[in-house]
């Protein structure tokens, strides 16, 4: 595409030039929050725009990525997994090798740096499985910022290891006892804290959800995943991949992975949703596959809710995908047809967890196992010279107790 004569994309094609100033990704996104938060969101949008144009901020963040996180994360050719599937070559983008073991650190460091820029002295965050909580506690320890993490009482019970890590790093973990006592309620509680503390506190939201500018900002901080992958593909295989697969709960690793490929029409983008144990409400968390358009947590997107607009309970074997909403940009990508989203069941994800452990010596997070499962299917149906890249968003150490429990074992 020559810069002097840009191709005009067809009406339905997804653009990378989103969101607009009002936070719209097509019709999705925007801001549906109490008036108390509106000024802070406007300020955050302005400050974020300034940092985007500030080479010093970018240099600081890049240095942290390189020397603290260990970026770039490798793009690894999974030979034995490829042989098993008998089709396209499967490459893994190893976000599991980042400091703290998942992609969440990319966003936590970016927003913590932004917190310092805004001269706010306190950080709050929500967490489901605990990965974002650990990443935020880590970033706050690094910068010496006080940190409060809201976590559902039910998740605290399921993720003891991460709770211990957060506390060890100096964060205060506050149990959330309202509603379903999981991620969704942790977000509600963090928002409530922020309503009262907005003058001196920044809310480091963990996914591409919430009111504008959060979905854009978190995507941008995570887009390092896709940019590196694109570069590594060109260097290692001499061309772009044929398909990129990532898991989608709120959708931060997938948004970061997909975004730099959005305008590469030859690259198929595929999202793996948590299909849980069935199709009935409460048995899955496949928001894009089975949800409706609605409002949740400050933005307009696909949601799982009943006919009255009340949020439905969800289930996934993976605590990090156990969320009844999804980032507005994913809704935009779904409706423009740019990304295809498919549910992957608990059983399929568990199977992929074991497959990757046995064939590659890599223990994937249960979240990432959903993507691995879908990538195996995608690769099987493709020619040997084709390439499928999977975002291995996190490592599976945190999940071993849950996997053992599901198998009827105790550790």
């Amino acid at each position: 595409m020559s810069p002097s004569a840009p191709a005009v994309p067809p009406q339905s094609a997804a653009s990378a030039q989103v969101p607009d100033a009002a936070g719209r990704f097509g019709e999705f996104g925007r801001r549906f929050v109490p008036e108390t938060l509106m000024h802070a969101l406007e300020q955050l949008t302005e400050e974020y725009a300034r940092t985007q144009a500030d080479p010093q901020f970018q240099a600081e963040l890049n240095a942290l990525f390189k020397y603290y996180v260990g970026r770039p994360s490798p793009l690894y050719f999974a030979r034995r997994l490829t042989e098993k599937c008998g089709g396209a070559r499967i490459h893994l983008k190893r976000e599991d090798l980042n400091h703290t073991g998942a992609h969440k650190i990319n966003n936590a460091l970016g927003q913590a740096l932004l917190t310092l820029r805004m001269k706010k002295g306190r950080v709050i965050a929500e967490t489901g499985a605990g990965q974002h909580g650990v990443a935020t506690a880590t970033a706050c320890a690094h910068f010496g910022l006080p940190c409060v993490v809201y976590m559902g009482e039910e998740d605290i019970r399921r993720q003891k290891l991460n709770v211990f890590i957060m506390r060890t790093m100096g964060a205060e973990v506050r149990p959330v006892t309202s509603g379903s006592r999981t991620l969704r309620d942790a977000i509600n509680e963090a928002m409530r804290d922020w309503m009262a503390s907005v003058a001196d506190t920044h809310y480091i939201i963990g996914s591409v959800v919430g009111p504008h500018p959060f979905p854009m900002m978190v995507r941008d901080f995570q887009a390092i995943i896709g940019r590196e992958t694109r570069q590594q593909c060109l260097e290692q295989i001499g061309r772009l991949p044929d398909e990129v697969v990532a898991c989608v709960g709120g959708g931060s690793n997938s948004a970061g992975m997909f975004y730099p490929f959005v305008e590469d029409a030859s690259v198929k983008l595929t999202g793996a949703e948590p299909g849980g144990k069935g199709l009935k409400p409460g048995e899955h968390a496949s928001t894009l596959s089975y949800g409706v358009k609605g409002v949740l947590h400050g933005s307009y997107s696909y949601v799982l809710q009943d006919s009255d607009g009340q949020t439905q309970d969800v289930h996934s074997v993976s605590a990090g995908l156990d969320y009844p909403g999804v980032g507005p940009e994913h809704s935009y990508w779904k409706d423009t047809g740019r990304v295809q989203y498919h549910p992957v069941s608990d059983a399929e994800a568990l199977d992929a967890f074991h497959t990757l452990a046995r064939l590659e010596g890599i223990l994937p997070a249960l979240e990432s196992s959903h993507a691995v499962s879908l990538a195996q299917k995608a690769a099987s149906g493709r020619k040997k010279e084709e390439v499928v890249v999977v975002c291995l968003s996190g490592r599976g150490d945190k999940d071993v107790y849950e996997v053992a429990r599901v198998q009827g074992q105790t550790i």
Partner: protein
Amino acid sequence: MAFMPFITAGDPDLATTQKLINTLAAQQVDLIEIGFPYSDPIADGPVIQASYTRALGKHLHVNEIFAAVREVTAGKTGRQRDKETERSSAAKSSPSLSVSPSPPLPPLVAMVAYAIIFRMGSEAFVRGARDAGFAGLIVPDLPADEAQDLARLTSAQGLDLVQLIAPTTTEARTKRILETAAGFIYCISVAGTTGVRDQLPDELKQQLKWLKTQTDLPLAVGFGISRPEQVDELRGLADGVIVGSAIVKHVAAIAEQGVAVETALGHVSKLAAGMVTATHKSS
């Protein structure tokens, strides 16, 4: 000054909600806000949240709230009909359920999350609210920036879409918000969620003074108010006060502590009487 109590619809059931409306009307409150339970109410503190959770736990539906409110506004729950209905039905017969004469119902305003309105469809929701006899809507998570379409629909149906102003709202934002405001201005007293607080901040008074110079709409102060003494602090600055959590807490005792409905209604009645006396004192 006006006294504007808030109650949660359906806690512990809609029959109690109907009795509460009649009880508050009997105390001559000036407006009643009726909260539509929502699963994820981020502007609400623990007391109202818990009341929403209880109501939804019994599978309360929006249309049931509309129907229950319609019964009250149509005079089918043992109280006098509102003036308009009465006039039209006066020719047929005198009300058969004439209990002790009570003042007409004050305006009822629905406090409802945008998720609920959007799911039903704005047009259908506004029509449902109008048919139920609501006079207006407060949508706490629909900032003025996104409220234009709904404001058009409400005004077409003769309803007011009430706008909120927070301590964090800048003067420039306030001016934009006032352009779509109708009914009254809901002034949030403190940054934070609903719930009882001891003190009202000094900044609130400054903001109210300035707001008076910007709009002719009545200013109602909510969040954190529960006692008549707080009314004195606002006298001359605000045109109304809103009390929510303190009332909802009395009602919560029915479900949480097994308190008799009549006892809880008595507590609410007493609180309302005190607030009505304080607010109506010199205005």
